[in-house]
């Protein structure tokens, strides 16, 4: 089994692709780490509003080194800045935004995503130290839950699977997956391939995907800039 390491998208490119689907004015929560990169590729002319679990709406990028104020951080404990029109609020209000269904998009990382939309991204199972943060809240309540991820693990095992073997973060919650090789939707309990790298055949992609890839006939090229 190959992981197509030579042609796969970088994390920056995956983030770029995910950013294209964020609409102007959308309220967006980006998971800690890799998903945070999506903010850097906001489409020109669109002004999404970024939410962080720890009580800020409307934050901007990191300040210059040395300019950090450690009372102004995001969920990943990184220093942030404010955009005009930002607001502070306490944790219960922050999660009222999340759990009340007020966020338009949540983008998270994944260990595994199943073809029914189940997501595993918080615990590798017994023995590891469990740490869930806000992931279980986000996946059950945002209007749209998307995943950014490598298509396969470092060992080359599929991350898109027929059924998650790792502890679930949420059930039937993911609707779109941006991977290093493809864009895959989840519809009616199936993976539906929307876009793939043009260098890959459908069979190539299926060979590194743990569940059956369906199509509705149209598969676009996954085209991203060099970043």
């Amino acid at each position: 089994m190959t992981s197509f390491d030579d042609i796969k998208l970088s994390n920056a490119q995956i983030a770029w692709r995910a950013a294209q689907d964020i609409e102007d004015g959308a309220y967006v929560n980006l998971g800690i780490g890799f998903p945070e990169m999506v903010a850097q590729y906001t489409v020109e002319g669109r002004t999404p509003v970024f939410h962080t679990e720890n009580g800020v709406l409307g934050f901007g990028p990191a300040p210059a080194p040395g300019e950090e104020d450690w009372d102004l951080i995001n969920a990943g404990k990184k220093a942030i800045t404010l955009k005009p029109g930002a607001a502070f609020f306490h944790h219960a209000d922050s999660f009222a935004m999340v759990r009340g269904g007020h966020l338009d998009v949540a983008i998270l990382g994944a260990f595994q995503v199943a073809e029914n939309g189940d997501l595993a991204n918080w615990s590798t199972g017994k023995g590891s130290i469990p740490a869930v943060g806000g992931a279980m809240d986000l996946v059950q309540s945002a209007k749209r839950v998307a995943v950014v991820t490598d298509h396969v693990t470092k060992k080359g095992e599929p991350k898109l699977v027929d059924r998650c073997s790792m502890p679930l973060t949420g059930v039937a919650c993911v609707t779109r997956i941006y991977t290093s090789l493809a864009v895959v939707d989840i519809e009616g309990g199936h993976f539906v391939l929307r876009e793939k790298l043009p260098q890959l055949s459908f069979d190539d992609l299926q060979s590194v995907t743990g569940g059956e890839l369906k199509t509705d006939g149209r598969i676009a090229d996954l085209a991203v800039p060099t970043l």
Partner: protein
Amino acid sequence: MDKTVATLAEAVADISDGATVMIGGFGGSGAPIELIHALIDRRVKGLTVINNNAGNGHVGIASMIENGLVAKMICSFPRSSDPVAFTEAYKSGRLELEVVPQGTLAERIRAAGAGIPAFYTATSYGTELAEGKPVEEFDGKHYVRERWLKADFALIKGELGDPMGNLTYRMAARNFNPIMAMAATKTIAQVSRIVPAGGIDPEQVISPGIFVDTVVEIPNPVQEEVLFREGAVYP
């Protein structure tokens, strides 16, 4: 992002017959009287209205009732110094009433905004307002299960607003306004002044813009209590 609209008519244009509408305020304080009157001008029918009260005199919610817009009131306290509009409609059978304890009303609204479909409260246990509701014992005390209360629209009154929808309120006019903003599919706010984004200190935002869809500026809004004391009748 610009959630502001220029006119009251535009602000309430989406509200149609049969809608459920939360209306902020406690008596006259915080009542979005200009938005209410703009809604009356649209002559929609069959509304379910959620407010703490049920109108006073012949303005605001009382006028909505008198003018036949309201099919059902959900409130805690339908009495007022002049409740004639409510009382006549209720006694004639034209108006349905659901009385909810005030704290339960507030919490049901907040629950809707926070994604909590049901919660337990000691309030109303053992009373007729708990009839038919599930009861459960926790730590030796009895609690009644209450459901969230959602709305299609919320009409609210703020003090400052910005194009992102961030709002502040004025004194005790805050009351139900911020929680109703959370609980409606579309929240429409009248404010005394629209300031640019950044014009409200992020520490002082009471309703973050994510909860607010439309903002209309009404400088020097009238106070329902003053209208009532003048004997005003709308329209």
